[in-house]
């Protein structure tokens, strides 16, 4: 803890700096590989959709011990009742879950009675879920509509609160998070249920939340840099990233701890279910979300901003000033890859102080 605190001090002053923005090509490559893998897996394997999306019936029979024998017993019971079981699985060691294609309510009642008789359990303890074939379509349609409306509103909000480039960068990071999370679902074959969809949608909020916090600092650090010639946009943004790094780590830890606890408790007490579906999507999404707000959103933002005339001019001024004043410094003063270096970045530190005191003087 103390060392993270120390790192925080050094990061804040710029004594230690991870050159995140400068190494953007490396991050892009990592993300690109992940995204290509995700899309490929999605294309090849597809998602393992729960019955909520396919339509069908699901029966969950609680048993003292569920084993292979209970699976075959369940299969026979369903066949004897004249229905076809599509999947029969053991859940949490004490439940047999039977899924069948769509059933009428009468057929479902008959089947649940047959299962109760076969397994000698009280019929009331069998969990039954019937899903009409159109339900899943509707859930998906609603989710997509929610997504679209959300994206538009967020883009508007970010453009007003920050600027349009930040909105674009934040949305790209968002797409990145959702794609990779969905890809991980396709790869692992985890079942996609409405609860996982809730998870995906929450990731949207969380990913943006995280990006907003980082961009807020970027906005603060880059305010007024165009008046001077001390630091380029990318450098100022990179400093912001470093300064919020400890916050990002703490926030992620604090957000992931409860999710992890849902996963652990959920798996050990309930087997699969709403809690786990949700927590799994969140866990993956939050990890990817934290990564993207640091390694994708900000570098991408810098790339866009560096193209503007005033930032090109600024970079030139900074470059020539460094050449004149400090021959040892390149345009990219920080060159360490991934590892912290102690940079002789005196000017940057002063610049930040100046900006901050100017702002607080208001």
């Amino acid at each position, binding site marked *: 803890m103390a060392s993270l605190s120390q790192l925080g001090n050094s990061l804040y002053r710029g004594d230690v700096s991870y050159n995140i923005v400068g190494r953007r090509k490396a991050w892009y490559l990592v993300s690109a590989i992940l995204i290509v893998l995700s899309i490929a897996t999605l294309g090849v394997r597809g998602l393992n959709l729960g019955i909520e999306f396919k339509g069908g019936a699901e029966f969950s029979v609680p048993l003292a011990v569920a084993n292979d024998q209970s699976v075959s017993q369940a299969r026979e019971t369903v066949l004897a009742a004249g229905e076809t079981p599509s999947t029969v699985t053991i859940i949490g060691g004490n439940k047999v879950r039977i899924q069948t294609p769509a059933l009428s309510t009468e057929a479902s009642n008959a089947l649940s009675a047959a299962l109760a008789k076969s397994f000698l359990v009280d019929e009331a303890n069998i969990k039954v879920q019937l899903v009409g074939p159109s339900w899943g379509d509707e859930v998906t349609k609603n989710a997509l509509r929610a997504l679209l409306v959300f994206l538009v509103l967020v883009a508007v909000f970010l453009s007003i609160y920050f600027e349009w480039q930040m909105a674009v960068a934040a949305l790209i990071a968002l797409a990145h998070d959702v794609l990779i999370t969905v890809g991980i679902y396709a790869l692992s074959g985890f079942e996609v249920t409405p609860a996982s969809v809730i998870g995906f949608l929450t990731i949207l909020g969380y990913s943006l939340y995280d990006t907003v916090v980082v961009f807020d600092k970027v906005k603060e650090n880059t305010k007024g840099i165009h008046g001077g010639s001390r630091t380029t946009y990318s450098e100022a943004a990179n400093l912001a990233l470093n300064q919020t790094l400890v916050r990002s780590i703490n926030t992620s830890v604090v957000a992931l701890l409860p*999710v992890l606890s849902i996963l652990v408790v959920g798996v050990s007490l309930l087997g699969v279910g709403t809690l786990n579906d949700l927590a799994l999507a969140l866990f993956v999404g939050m990890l990817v979300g934290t990564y993207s707000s640091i390694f994708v959103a900000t570098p991408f933002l810098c790339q866009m901003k560096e193209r503007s005339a005033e930032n090109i001019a600024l970079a030139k001024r900074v470059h020539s000033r460094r050449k004149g004043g400090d021959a040892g410094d390149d345009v990219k003063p920080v060159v360490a890859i991934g590892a912290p270096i102690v940079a002789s970045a005196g000017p940057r530190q002063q610049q930040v102080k100046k900006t901050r005191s100017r702002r607080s003087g208001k």
Partner: protein
Amino acid sequence: MAQHYRPGRSLLIFTVGIIGLLVWAFLPGERHTPKLGLDLRGGTQVILSPSVTAGETLSQEQLNQTLSIIRQRVDGFGVAESEVTIQGTGSGAKIIVTIPGETSRTVVDQLKTTAQLNFRPVLAIDYGSPQPSTSPTPSVSSSASSGATPSTSASPSTSASPTTSVTPTPTPSPSVSVAPELLVPPIQSPDGSGDFANRFSALDCAKSDILKGSTDDPAQYLISCEKDASVKYALAPADLVGTDIDSATAGLPQQGAGGWQVELQMTSEGAKKFADSTTKLSALEKPNDQFAIVLDGVVISAPSVNEAILGGSAVISGSFTADEARALAQVLKYGALPVALDVDEVQQISPTLGNDQLKAGLIAGGFGLLLVIVYLLLYYRALGVIAVISLVAAAVMTFLVFVILGRGIGFTLTLSGVAGAIVAIGITADSFIIYFERIRDEIREGKRLRVAIDQGWTRARRTILAADFVSLLSAAILYYLSVGSVRGFAFTLGLITFVDIAVAFMFTRSLVTKLGNSKWMNAGSSWTGVSPTRLGVKAATSEVN
């Protein structure tokens, strides 16, 4: 503005607020726990959607009628705290029925049935069950449900027929042998010939399933019973169906005599059919001048027609009580669901499983909270204590709001809601982290603690609000554009975001400011979490490398 900040006052307002919520939540005689969804306590949830073919539209009125009929049926199950709610509008609307506890598996069928209302001319009438002694001309003195056989007339009835004579059936019941499957309701026949008469005589209302209701094809002949099983009827195909009725109201006749009656108003098409039917019926002898009002294959009432009714409005009179008249009016008006319903989703969860899920949710939440508390204490020390107190305050506030909303607007806490709350722990704690990191940044700049706390807040506030706004936005959109469990999650998330803002602004900031005024905090012990030395201010150069 920072100079005018009075932490004591904020703290006081916050405390008063919490106490207010506490009193409100624990008002005597009310429920003191959040209302749990069925996935946490077991029960049946059915999501129904109107089945509308492309191009058809569904009016809000039709939807409301459907809802009120479904509500009636659910109330009929007699399970306390059952709920019927509607989400969405038009053909995209969903009717969500929640019945807590263990329920019969047939609930779903009973719910979605479209009750059918038909008006059928009466062909024959007899005792519901074989009578012990046979008299040549038995007379049914009255139908028990209404006290007297009602009659229908255009004006308040002047010639009520107190008794209905029953046409003796040609063959005595015992000698008729009819295959049992022919007596399984609905007992219908396309042309009323063949063994239709035999089936009529063989029917024993008391032993039949007819009164449970069945589908009634208005184009076919029907044999059915009065709802108290006292009388059975052979009925012709329907002259009028439920949709021909425009409105029906129960009321007292203007003269004030004769007890309650039901006034009918037909649609224009219904009026025409009704005129034809009553012209035909009024010319006939008893019992063929009667028409039976048949709901789901059960005869509700069979008034006789005194005269042709041409205006499309009619009065059913008889010795109705107020309740009977209202019930009949209700059936006539709403009897048929205006639209067929599709079952989108059925979920039946046993109370045992519900309880397990609740327990797992609570354990996961408690465990998650504990982990976060340990982390915050280790990292932020004294400030961490404030964070923990704030988290607990947020948790208490959330619980109280759950209780109050459960009573006020029927907010139910579902498993996904619990998950939303657990996720929100992270988001709430993050507000504190943003604030604390800002304070530490200010101290690293060399500011004194009190100044740092003040200015740190000014900066953190902006970030917290912006980030919470995004959270709220996603919660609101999720809530408005989704159904069922997604909604519960979104609502909880949004609610807790508000709680987070209240706690951070009114409580955490005040506590930090108060603490910042203490000598101990300013002395810079490493346990404060804001020690300038540890934050590298005084010995900055020597400490880092």
